[in-house]
Structure formats: structure tokens, C-alpha cells
């Protein structure tokens, strides 16, 4: 008797149907790539009991437990339950023991963030988990990444939404000893937004990207971080076959609440504007915007959003990237 599997359903249930007939892989979502080390043991157990003993650490910071016979999906889903609970994934009561209840919206990835990294301006994993709570489960194809600073180690600009940590440098001239460490640091590691005038530092506000290098270089605490945390929201970066491109700055000096709101609002935009021909309802948001226009996107995205007075919004955004889809 042939194997009878609803592959569409299995894919939404975070299973990959692999190229080897009869076998799949379980895609374990770990928001922010941050988890209790006990999860590793749980993944190991599944891999050794049902898989081929190997695990792929995915590009989106999950695990893909490979070589699982598709007949074992139900059993493996049961074993995934403690993993889902440990990493704090949303789950409806009726979905208990049934694995991940959606897969379209991808795992929110994050750099290591300010728990560890001296450059990071915020706790990326915590924000990733928060956003995951807000938007999962959902089958629309969204990619979100959180990165601690403008170095963008998380490649946030390759995502539909990239959240880049910023800090508004605070300068106390009374603590400044004119040592130039910040000026040199900004010049060599960042954008060269600082100069010295009359032995004190002048910050070019237009140029400054809020990376925080001046603060980490300052030996006297003349430079400190703003109490408020700020973010840059880059939008509609993507990989893919047609027109891969880097995300562009939409908001600069934005706050967490509004960014979360904008991401959630965008789900309504996609619901209403996705191409009816999109295979498995999967269409990069950027292509939808290319088709219906940026103004339309903004109408949806900015619903109930009241930006901070200091937030800079780029009213129009143009993307470039590489075009493989030109018709001529």
C-alpha cells in the first residue's frame, strides 16, 4: 500500500517533505535562536529515536531534524510538545501534542544581542520572542529579524522587517576630557559623525546612525546611552529567484511598540492584497508592494501608529537589488 500523506497539511505543520521518498524533516522553531540548553537534549532524543541522528542548524536559527519517516510524524509531534513549551511558542489548547501549528511566518531570528555582545543596543532575543508571540501562528510568508546594532550580524536587511538596535548618544561635556577616543572610534568603526570643536565633541545628527560606538569608547562616561531604546526599521529586503534586494530604511529612531504594530498591520495588508495566484499563498510582501504601490502599504501599516516626535519616516522607499525577472 502506498504512503498516504497530506503534504500541504504537513508543510503547514512545519514538516519538510524531503527529496528521499517517504522521509521528511521536522522544523523546530526557536524564536531569537535563544533557548534553554535542555531543548538540545530533547532535539537529540527525537533525532536519535526517529531521525537519522543528524540535525541541521538552520539559517533561521531553528533545528531541522532530518531523516524522519513520514509515518512517524504524529509520534514526533508529541515529542515536540516540551520543546514548544520550553521555547515559549504560542499554542491553542486543541493543538497540544500536534507540533507547530503554522510555518508560513518564519522563525524570528536574532543576533546574540546585548546579553552578551558589547556592541548590541538591545536584548534581541527578548524582542524576537515578543514578536513571535504577537504574530505566530500564521501561515502568511513573513520574515522578521532582530539585530542589536548597525553591524547587522543577523542580516536583518535581508528580511521583510529588519529591526536594528539604535541608541541616542547622550553627551555630557562636563565629563569629556577631549581624548578623541569617540571621534577615532566613530571614524574607524562607524560613519564618522563626530568631530571636535573647541575641545568638545560635535555630533552630526544627520550622519549619526545611533550605533553606540562613541559610548563604548568613552573612558569617562561623558557619552552614555539614551534611557529610551531606539530602533531602525528596514523593510522588504529579500532573497529569491526574481529580484533579491536589501531592505531599505523605513523608520529611524523608532520605538518597539510602533514597530510591532506596523508588523501586525502588514498582515492585514497581505491578506487583502496577496495575489490570488500565489502558490500556497506564499508571496513575498515586497512583491505585493511592488504591485499595489508603497502608498497602499503605508495606509495599512501606519494604522493606529503614532510615531514618536523624534522618529524619522522615509515617506517613499525605492528598492534596487538584482533583477532576474526583466521581461525584455
Amino acid at each position, binding site marked *: 500500500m502506498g504512503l498516504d500523506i497530506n503534504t500541504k497539511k504537513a508543510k503547514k505543520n512545519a514538516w519538510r517533505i524531503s527529496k528521499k521518498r517517504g522521509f521528511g524533516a521536522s522544523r523546530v522553531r526557536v524564536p531569537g535562536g535563544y533557548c534553554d540548553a535542555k531543548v538540545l537534549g530533547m532535539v537529540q532524543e527525537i533525532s536519535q529515536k526517529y531521525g537519522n541522528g543528524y540535525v541541521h542548524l538552520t539559517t533561521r536559527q531553528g533545528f531541522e531534524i532530518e531523516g524522519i519517516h513520514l509515518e512517524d510524524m504524529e509520534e514526533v509531534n508529541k515529542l515536540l510538545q516540551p520543546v514548544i513549551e520550553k521555547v515559549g511558542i504560542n499554542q491553542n489548547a486543541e493543538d497540544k501534542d500536534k507540533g507547530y501549528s503554522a510555518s508560513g511566518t518564519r522563525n524570528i531570528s536574532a543576533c546574540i544581542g546585548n546579553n552578551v555582545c558589547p556592541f548590541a*543596543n538591545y536584548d534581541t532575543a527578548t524582542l524576537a520572542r515578543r514578536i513571535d508571540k504577537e504574530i505566530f501562528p500564521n501561515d502568511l510568508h513573513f520574515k522578521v529579524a532582530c539585530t542589536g546594532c548597525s553591524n547587522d550580524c543577523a542580516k536583518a536587511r535581508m528580511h521583510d522587517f529588519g529591526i536594528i538596535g539604535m541608541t541616542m548618544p547622550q553627551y555630557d561635556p562636563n565629563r569629556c576630557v577631549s581624548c578623541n577616543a569617540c571621534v577615532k572610534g566613530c571614524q574607524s568603526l562607524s560613519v564618522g559623525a563626530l568631530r571636535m570643536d573647541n575641545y568638545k565633541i560635535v555630533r552630526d545628527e544627520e550622519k549619526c546612525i545611533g550605533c553606540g560606538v562613541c559610548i563604548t569608547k568613552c573612558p569617562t562616561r561623558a557619552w552614555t546611552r539614551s534611557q529610551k531604546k531606539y530602533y531602525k526599521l528596514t523593510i522588504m529586503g529579500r532573497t529569491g529567484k526574481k529580484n533579491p534586494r536589501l531592505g531599505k530604511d523605513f523608520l529611524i529612531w523608532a520605538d518597539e511598540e510602533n514597530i510591532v504594530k506596523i508588523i501586525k498591520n502588514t498582515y492585514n495588508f497581505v491578506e487583502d492584497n496577496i495575489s490570488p495566484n500565489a502558490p500556497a499563498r506564499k508571496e513575498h510582501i515586497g512583491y505585493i508592494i511592488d504591485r499595489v504601490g508603497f502608498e497602499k502599504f503605508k495606509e495599512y501599516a501606519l494604522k493606529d501608529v503614532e510615531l514618536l516626535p523624534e522618529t524619522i519616516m522615509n515617506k517613499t522607499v525605492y528598492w534596487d537589488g538584482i533583477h532576474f525577472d526583466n521581461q525584455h
Partner: protein
Amino acid sequence: MGYRFSKEKMDEIFSKLSEDFDVFAPVVKKGDGTFSDEDVVRYDKVHSLDEIEFEKKSDYSFKEILLPINETVFYFTEDETIVPKKPEKERLVFLRSCDIHAVKRLDEIYLKNGFEDFYYDRIRKMTKFVLMGCSNSCETGFCASLGTNKCDNYDLYLKCTEGEVFVDVKDEELKKAFESGEKKDVNPDFVSENPTKVTLPKNITKDTMQSGLFKEYGSRCIKCGRCNFVCPTCTCFSMQDIFYKDNEKNGERRRVWASCQVDGYSQIAGGHEFRQDNSDRMRFKVMHKIYDFEKRFGYTMCVGCGRCDDVCPEYISYSTLINKLSKEGE
């Protein structure tokens, strides 16, 4: 004279004191550390005991209260100079035993080194010192090795416990404020040993200058000057003349903290810099702390607070370096 007070009573007294005095103490500055979501403990004006950080050693020392990071020496116009007024109120400064020993070093340089520095002197005369005890040693300090773990030249000792405050008043002027308390023998908490132990080199000769240790540590140093800026005994400053932008005939002269590790410190007119190499700067600093100062004034400069070890971004441990130097000289 020692007294015991309830916390509430002491809060009243403190509130009154902070009207008569500017009170400076270590304070936790939330989020103001070098890295994101990290705090820094540094000195600031306080109005209540609760604002004071009694547990953690301050990252930056008290010295900025006696010796402001930026101090305007005078303002000038085309035909006159004006010296800024001294602060209005007398000041109380909370500090630990090691730092009280550091005050002696600052006095040595600014009051007893040939002439009295006008600016230091006038603030120093307005300052009383409040000892904060150390019930436990910090990790990196080595006060016991240098004999700076104890002191008796404080004006006031103050210790907060659960619901109660103990003081020992020595200063006549301050005594009045505490007379209402219940009399009690109060002895300051001093540590008698530290986890970090340091042996000062005994046989420093000209050969010590050639030690490979300075090369090794110098090659690790990034010349940021943090060790000098946190040090309670570093006293160097440089001068800055500022010409106001909208009328460059007016301006001010400031003196600003300087660091022997930072570029420019040993530069002279014409651009020559005596100690360009990091290892020369490292040698200069270390030898000054453990040899040159002593040769001139009869006692070691370093008080063993350990702040330089705590702050160094390159994990250069001054105390380890000193111990290695001692071993070399044996």
C-alpha cells in the same frame, strides 16, 4: 563619639544635612555603563541616604569632587580675567578607606608640592569626609597589602544596617547634628585581607626600566586612559583655552583631566612626543605609582583600590603586573 539612630530619624538628620551641605556619594547610574543595559557607579550629589550605593565599589573615584574633570580657571575678555566663584556650600563626600588614603596623595600634589593650588585648596577646605566601611573586601582591591585598609582621619563614619544607622563623629562642627542619638561605641568596618594580594618590588633599579613586562603589557594596551581616569591618585591635567564662537576675543581657560596613556600627553611644541610607544607609557605609569612618587614623598602612590583592574577593557591587571615585577627583582 558614636551614636545609634533609627533609619527614620537618620533620614531626618540627613535631609537637614543635605540642606547645609552639598553631599556627594557613589550612586548607581542606571544604564549609564559602557555597554547596553549596564549601570555605572559614580559620584553625584545626593539628598537622601537611599540614593547612596554602599555595597558596590564605585567605578569612578571621588576625586572628581575635589578635582573637577573640567574646571574653568578663569574667564577672559580683552582686558580682564575673572576667576569663577567657589561653590557656595560646604561639602560632604562619602568614601572608603582606600580613598581616604588617596586624599593624602591629592593633598601632597596640590598643596605640598612647592605651592598651594588655589582651586584645589579652596574646595578642599570646604570638604568633609564621610567614611563608608567595608564589611567585605572587594575582589580586585589590595588595600591590606598597602596598609590603606584602615584609617582614622575621617570626619564622620556612617553605617546603615537593617532599619538602623550607626555613626561615629569626629568633626566638631558635625557633632551637633548627631547629638540626639543613643550613645554607643561605633567602630568602622575595615577589612584585614583581600583576595588580591600584592607585593611591591623591593629592588627597583635602572634595569627595571628594561623589563620585558612593560613591552608585553604595553603591546596589549590600547591607550584609552581608563586606568588613569578611574584612579583616585592620578592628578594630571592639561590646559585648554577656549575662544567663544560669537566673539573670539572672549573665552575661558580650563584645566581638564589628562592621562599619561592617551596620545598627546607627552607631546611638546613642535610635535615631539617623548613617550610614543605604549610600553614606555605603561612603564611611566607603573613606575610613577610604585617608585617615583615614593622617592619624592616617602610613601607609595597607589592605594590599592583596584579600579584600574576593574575598568581595563583589555584585561590588563595592574596588580598582576606589580607582582610579576616583584618576582623579577627577587
